């Protein structure tokens, strides 16, 4: 029954392929989305806690909803439904392929959060990655998206290696792939598993140094970006750590390492978001930063709060992406420079503003709550980290404000078409997300936190709250101030924009240092393969040939051939040195063939056609035979 959760969207996807081109398919889609959510809800509610599928004599797959898994299980379709609706509305031309793929994407992600063992997790994990390739490359006729999809897949796959390793080590140490078995690990194995998981999660959640793939992922259609930033692909990394970090208490460096990664990413992503001049990449930067905050929370030993942040972020980030999609559609490009669509799409602007407030972590929004909780949790561990998180709030507020102004600011009166505010279909799909964002403000209510994060509903101390507000205000005001001065688009000038475009230099680093160098290595090896690999074989053949030539010199077998023998010895030496010389140049098997062929020609010289030489050969040969007989004892 647990399988229902992923199966329903999967079936819906199949049905969608057939039905979507028809009329009235919108309603069917709605039904499908509701069913998907229903299935998830039913699984959460049902009493079946775990399902184990035999996958082979040694392998088995375990599925089941853990506490946080259940939350995710519900969150994913909830976020996905509006997004898919948005996709249905805005991508009419390609909805037949896009919508089913998104549904499959949801299915794989649901499978992921249902996983109770690392094998199942890896399966879902890789499938999520593969789906991202299909989705990001969805506009495959353009030259860009396919390679962007490739970068995404490969970068995340580098991280996947960590998961492979973790799964293997876990099995080797405990004989099981079960996630709860991680608890039982002893140190060296636990270290390996921890490292593997951290690698996998960092790559998937776009943490430094893998963060830049998110930029590439922007090549996909907006709904894809919205989904993979919020509840799917990227969320998988944080989800993994939220689930596993409590089990790896045996590894002392694990949590600090997570926190460090998160902290670095939070700042780096913030800077990138603040400097970025395109809408979606700016949001991508912010995604990295926000997941950085989650990592900090996990590192601070508060995975529950990280989970809350994951949920909250999912809701408002998908809202923001849909808004960005509208903005891009309206402005015709993704460049922030040409937007300020507040007058054109006031409703959309309003909905986005809700999301931006949450992003900026303004108190009394959901985002605000989770950020305060993270600060508090970090403070408990280390005041320095807490302070840094607090400071990063300014950065967040700055780029949130910046985005708000640049995308949805009122703009020049009269330059854009002005219309009566009305709710359009795409706005409609944003509405549930905006509502969700607002609803999450209830976390501030006493006890509100308990149901989401399972955390204690403790209040925040007033001082830090005020401090946060101050920091946020400072950030926001800075944005406003820059806007006044007209430099908000490029706060740090061209160099800053360049830095942002290259993800602080990570993109060239990866492209040249990793991708190009491995390509060069591959090319070198290929040349090596074509020329030199057989050198050993060839050497043997050459020696054979030289030897046969030495034998073939008919003079060697006679007495006065002694001189010749010396001569052919010299030849042999010459040959050897030439072989050494040619090794690097020409080492093909064909070389081998030629060598043997020459041996053939040489040996034919023995057959001179002159019978007296045959006779001489007999005499000499018999002498040699006698010699062999005499010495053979």
């Amino acid at each position, binding site marked *: 029954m647990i399988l229902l959760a992923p199966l329903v969207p999967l079936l819906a996807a199949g049905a969608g392929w057939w039905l979507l081109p028809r009329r009235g398919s919108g309603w069917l889609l709605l039904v499908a989305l509701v069913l998907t959510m229903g299935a998830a809800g039913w699984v959460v509610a049902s009493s079946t806690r775990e399902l184990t599928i035999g996958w082979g004599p040694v392998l088995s797959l375990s599925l089941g909803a853990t506490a946080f898994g259940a939350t995710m299980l519900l969150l994913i379709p909830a976020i996905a439904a509006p997004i898919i609706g948005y996709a249905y509305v805005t991508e009419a031309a390609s909805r037949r392929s896009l919508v089913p793929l998104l549904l499959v994407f949801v299915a794989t992600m649901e499978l992921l959060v249902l996983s109770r063992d690392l094998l199942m997790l890896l399966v879902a994990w890789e499938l999520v990655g593969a789906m991202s390739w299909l989705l990001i490359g969805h506009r495959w006729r353009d030259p860009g998206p396919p390679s962007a999809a490739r970068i995404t897949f490969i970068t995340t796959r580098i991280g996947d290696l960590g998961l492979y390793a973790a799964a293997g080590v876990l099995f080797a140490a405990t004989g099981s792939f079960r996630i709860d078995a991680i608890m039982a690990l002893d140190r060296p194995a636990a270290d390996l598993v921890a490292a593997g998981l951290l690698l996998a999660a960092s790559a998937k959640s776009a943490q430094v140094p893998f963060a830049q793939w998110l930029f590439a992922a922007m090549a996909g259609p907006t709904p894809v970006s919205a989904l993979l930033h919020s509840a799917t692909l990227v969320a998988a990394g944080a989800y993994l750590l939220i689930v596993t970090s409590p089990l790896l208490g045996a590894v002392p460096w694990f949590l600090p390492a997570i926190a460090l990664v998160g902290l670095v990413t939070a700042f780096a992503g913030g800077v990138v978001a603040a400097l970025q001049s395109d809408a979606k990449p700016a949001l991508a930067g912010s995604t990295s930063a926000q997941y950085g905050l989650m990592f900090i929370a996990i590192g601070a030993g508060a995975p529950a709060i990280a989970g809350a942040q994951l949920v909250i972020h999912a809701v408002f980030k998908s809202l923001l992406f849909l808004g960005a999609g509208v903005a891009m559609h309206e402005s015709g490009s993704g460049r922030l420079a040409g937007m300020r669509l507040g007058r054109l799409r006031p409703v959309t602007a309003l909905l986005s503003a809700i999301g931006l407030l949450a992003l900026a972590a303004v108190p009394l929004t959901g985002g605000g709550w989770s950020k305060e909780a993270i600060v508090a949790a970090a403070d408990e561990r280390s005041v320095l980290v807490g302070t840094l998180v607090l400071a990063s709030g300014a950065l967040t507020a700055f780029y949130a404000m910046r985005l708000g102004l640049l995308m949805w600011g009122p703009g020049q009166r009269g330059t854009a078409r002005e219309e009566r505010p009305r709710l359009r279909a795409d706005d409609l799909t944003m509405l549930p997300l905006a509502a969700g964002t607002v609803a999450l403000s209830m976390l501030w209510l006493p006890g509100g936190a308990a149901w989401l994060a399972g955390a204690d509903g403790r209040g925040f101390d007033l001082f830090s709250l005020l401090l946060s507000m101050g920091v946020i205000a400072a950030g926001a005001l800075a944005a406003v101030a820059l806007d006044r001065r007209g430099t908000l688009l490029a706060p740090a000038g061209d160099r800053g924009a360049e830095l942002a475009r290259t993800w602080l230099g990570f993109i060239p680093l990866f492209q040249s240092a990793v991708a190009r160098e491995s390509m060069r290595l591959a090319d070198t090896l290929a040349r090596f393969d074509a020329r030199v690999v057989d050198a050993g074989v060839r050497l043997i053949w050459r020696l054979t040939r030289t030897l*046969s030539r030495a*034998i073939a010199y008919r003079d060697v*077998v006679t007495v006065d051939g002694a001189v010749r023998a010396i001569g052919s010895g010299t030849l042999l030496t010459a040959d050897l040195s030439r072989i050494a010389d040619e090794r690097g140049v020409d080492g093909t098997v064909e070389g081998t*063939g030629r060598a*043997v*062929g020459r*041996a*053939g*020609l*040489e*040996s*034919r010289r*023995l*057959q001179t*056609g002159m*019978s*007296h030489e*045959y*006779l001489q*050969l*007999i*005499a*000499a*040969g*018999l002498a*040699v*035979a*006698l010699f*062999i*007989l*005499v010495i*053979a*004892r």
Partner: protein
Amino acid sequence: MAMGTDMAVMVGDVIPELALLVGAVIVLLLALTLPASRQAWVAWPTLIALLVAGIATVALFGGEERLTFAGTYAVDAAALWAKLFILAGTAAVVLLSVPWFRKDPRHGEYYALLLLAALGAVLMAGAADLKEVLVAILLSSVTGFVLAGFHRRSSLSSEAAIKFYLVGALANTTALMGAALLFGLAGSTTLEGIGQGLAAGGEGARPALLLGLVLLLGVLGFKLGAVPVHSWVPDVAQGAPAPIAGFITAIPKVGAFLFLARLMLVLPEGVDWQPLIAVAATATMTLGNLASLWQDDVRRILGWSAVSQTGYGLMAIVGLGASSLALPALLYFLAAYVAGNIAAFGVIVELRGRTNLADFDGAGRVRPALLGSLAISFLSFIGVPPLAGFVAKLLLFAVAIEVGYLWLAVVAAINTVISIVYYVRVLAPAYLRTPAGPIATLARPAAVATYLATAAVVLVGLLAEPFVAAFSGRPLLP
């Protein structure tokens, strides 16, 4: 040794040989009486003589292994099998010869000589005595020289004959000195006597023994085409009439191999002859293969390949006495080799002597069956299962490994790889290129013989058991 009453028994032991001799005489006489247009009929008595000899040979199988004619002649399973190979091979050569020599009026002489050549090989196979083997070799050689030069108008044929002769004469001549020395040391010329005499001779006999042995081995090497007495083989294969080339490169080898085996087995303890044979095997197969590589004449390729095959066969000799597989390996190898060689030369004959490599382009498409035969015989030479050549190589390798000559097996393996190249050099254009024109063939008998030999190559491989079983467990006399 008793005389008189035993004579009848002894004559009973050589009925196959007598059949061949009588056949040869009948052929001669018949040719004298038949008119010109019917001369070709003498092929029939030739075949009948071979058949009678074959039946007589089979009939002898029932008896015990024994020496006859005062220890000069062995009637044992190995010899009888060898005779069967020789007779069957000769019969196939007769069939090949019928169309090939259609225009040549000298049928009587030809078939008589062919029968006598077969007789020479048969006598070598049974010889258990130095005198006997020397005359048998002489008979085999002298007929061979003449047959190789049978095409009077072909300059290549006569050149092949005289080269064959010069090499053979020197080998025969030196062998006489060797025989004299061995006789002097052992006081006897029978192998049995030599074995006893040499065993009694002790260390003092060693120098002359080794010298005599080498001189004697020279003539056996000549019949086998082993290095260093191999030079005639490619020349004869190329220059002699094609059926005869097929005959000479295969049939006398059978007899020579058997006598070589018998000789090696009577050598006393102190003579370590195995390394010599192993070295000779190495040299023979390597030279044969290397020299074949870039030949442009298919018959010459076959000639060199015959040299290399001798090298493989010598591996069995190395294992004689130490490995129970050695004798079965040798006999099986001979059967496979004779069949394969006859098939290969049969194809050449049936293709009217087509021998230039360039003339084989696309032949596989024009003459699929014939070239199929060629392919099968070549693959058998390479040792591709399940053909006879494969089982032969398997046994030979097994012998070498069993007696500790792993290196020899490895050398043979490397040689086999080299050999692929020249076999494929013939086959590849035949199958992969487009034909240049029509390819004429000779009359049916040659095709029949070719296909029979090909079938033998396949069947001897597939149904190896009766042969291997028959070759195993029977002693080699003396």
